[in-house]
């Protein structure tokens, strides 16, 4: 970036000197723009630096990771990654994939028809229903964990990955319904009328006409559900034990109150973030479009 912007003022200045004030105004926004670029880079690097530090730390030995002042030059090692994989990360990842994947699938299956009905065919109490959905997010999770724990204990479903699937589905459903609703509202009513005129039924309209139009929104919604479910810690910590613990619980188990753990924790964190980063990268194009589409409304 810098190499592209730097030569520009050098070419422009002689021209600006000779041709007076009117042209003189031109370099100003360019200077402002490059300043903005620099500023943006600084902010971006600032935001990225903790992640970068985590990646760097994951290649250190524990004593180098704990040193103060921090060490920037060190012999990289894969010991920490080996230790993480030896600690049996596989089961945790599998549980996370099941809990995240199935819950997101269920959310999409349930949220699409619900939000279709709430946006395209509203009825008298639509606003109340919408408020009811979002109101389930208003109670802090910690306030309901004890009843949930006791109920799960009575039903003998503690430490069961399907319990997490049910909870994650209900946790993400309100958000998905609200998001999908705003995407459905973007669809011009003329399109629906045209579909009706051509004799398309409800399912066909939904599947063949609406879905392609809201696909970016759906991708964005699904990605957000994936991120929330993948990173969910509180339910996973309290309701799972040995069999169905997920990746965030695995991360915490890398910590210890007696000993150094930063390097190994960083390695585990890098591995834990990879799937989400990958999912975000795959969905990036759709995501940006989807997010702005919802925002405009």
């Amino acid at each position, binding site marked *: 970036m810098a190499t592209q912007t730097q030569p520009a003022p050098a070419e422009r200045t002689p021209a600006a000197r000779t041709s007076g004030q009117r042209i003189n105004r031109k370099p100003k926004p360019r200077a402002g723009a490059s300043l903005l670029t620099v500023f943006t880079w600084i902010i971006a690097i600032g935001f990225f630096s903790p992640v970068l530090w985590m990646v760097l730390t994951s290649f250190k*030995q*524990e*004593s180098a990771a*704990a*040193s*103060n002042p921090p060490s920037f030059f060190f012999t990289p090692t894969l010991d920490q990654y080996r230790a993480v994989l*030896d600690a049996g990360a596989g089961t945790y990842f599998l549980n996370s994939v*099941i809990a995240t994947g*199935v819950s997101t699938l269920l959310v999409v299956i349930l949220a699409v028809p619900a939000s279709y009905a709430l946006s395209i065919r509203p009825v008298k109490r639509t606003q109340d229903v919408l408020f009811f959905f979002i109101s389930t997010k208003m109670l802090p999770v910690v306030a309901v964990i004890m009843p949930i*724990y*006791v109920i799960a*204990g009575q039903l003998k479903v*503690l*430490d*069961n*990955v*399907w319990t997490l699937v049910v909870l994650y589905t209900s946790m993400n459903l309100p958000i998905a319904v609200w998001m999908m609703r705003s995407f459905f509202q973007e669809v011009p009513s003329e399109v629906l009328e045209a579909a009706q005129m051509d004799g398309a039924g409800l399912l066909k309209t939904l599947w*063949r006409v609406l879905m392609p139009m809201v696909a970016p929104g759906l991708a964005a919604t699904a990605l957000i559900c994936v991120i929330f479910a993948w990173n969910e810690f509180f339910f996973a*910590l*309290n309701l799972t*034990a*040995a*069999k169905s*613990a997920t990746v965030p*619980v695995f991360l*915490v*188990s*890398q*910590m*210890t*109150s*007696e*000993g*150094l753990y930063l390097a190994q924790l960083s390695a585990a964190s890098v591995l834990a973030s990879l799937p989400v980063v990958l999912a975000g990268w795959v969905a990036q194009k759709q995501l940006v479009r989807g997010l702005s589409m919802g925002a405009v409304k």
Partner: protein
Amino acid sequence: MRSERSQPQERRGRRVKRFAAAAAAAAMVLTGCSSANADGRQEIVVAIVSNPQMTDAISLQDRFKEEHPNVDVRFVSLPENEARAKITASVATGGGEFDVVMVSNYETPMWAENGWLTNLQDYADNTQGYDPDDFIPNIREALSYEDDLYSVPFYGESAFLAYRQDLFEDAGLTMPEQPTWADIAGFAEALHNPDEGFSGICLRGLAGWGEVMAPLTTMINTYGGSWFDEDWNATLDSPEVKAAVTDYVDLIRNSGQPGAATSGYGDCLTRYSQGNAAMWFDATAMVSTVEDPDSSLVVGKTAYAPAPVEETDSAGWLYSWSLAIPSTSEEKDAAWDFISWMTDKDFIELVGEEISWERVPPGSRLSTYEIPEYAEVAQAYAEPTLSAMAGASQETSMTGSVPYPGLQFVGIPEFQDLGTRVAQQVSAAIAGQKTVEEALEQSQRYAETVAESYQSGEH
């Protein structure tokens, strides 16, 4: 693309997809439900705290499986706070996820009284070669309720003072055989060098009943103070407590580590093992990091002195991570098989031979200290650890008698909350937001409330 397909083709495609989805869902539900053990195998779930020695035990689990091929062990290992919360919730509500839980001498007597734990005395007595009398007496007593063991120690710890012998020699200082807190304050001031990020001493300042309150309570004890007197009157406003807290806070503020109000055991461990502090008074378990060349820069430069005292002969601290079986467990025999494996003499030999003698879980058995290999690597700290534990009783570490069990804690359920509240006051004093008087005044009110509610619950 879709519109180019012919209709029947598409319908068929959709049907196939639907069938596939249904089949996949059914398969997943079935596999989820059919994991119960059908072939007589026993599965036990073990919840432990993820400290280095416990992680070592997990890495040796194959050896247990060789001896007990019918028992599958699954581990849940979490950091102390998460583990404590999770184990407490599970045991108290009868959640029943765990067959073996790691508890401490704080929980054991209380939970045994509530009927939450299985009596292990018969198991221990009837297991050949297990020898429960080999456990360090103070630890065994702390893990018993009505003279029966309800949990068995995996490792035990007391507290001592680690100091940099090389720096003491350079500065011409000599650590007395039994230092007092006044000695320590003098040394700390002499060696304090904040300009180079080096502090004379590192002491816990982080709010939390298991953080700042642990060293501070032993200091209060040796100054002749206590949390409550025999009639459950709160005594945090007594002159002895005030003197102890004032000295502790002054010592940290004058010659302690920077940011002390937010630094706990972990922070001091890092500072000391990276060579940024001259002294550190804390749990004996520190040696597994301080003397480990992989994580410490001060290996071999450290000597260990007994906990500083004031009015008493010793200033005891006693803590043990131990293993217990919740009464809800349905696999008690298999659970005991595992517990006895992990706390047996053979396990200590196994760790020494397979991992290293530095990593042996210390402070549980007297016989550990008679193993020549261990005596050799632990030369610097074996004797200080043993004598610290031997002195860790209320008789030797307190001036009067108190109605509660515990040395660096008060063994009542309310203490987790009370200790943390008082710790917040002390932390505020260390940070300079309050005076020690103000902090103790507030703490005294908390303690009075707790004494009231504890007594009304008792009677």
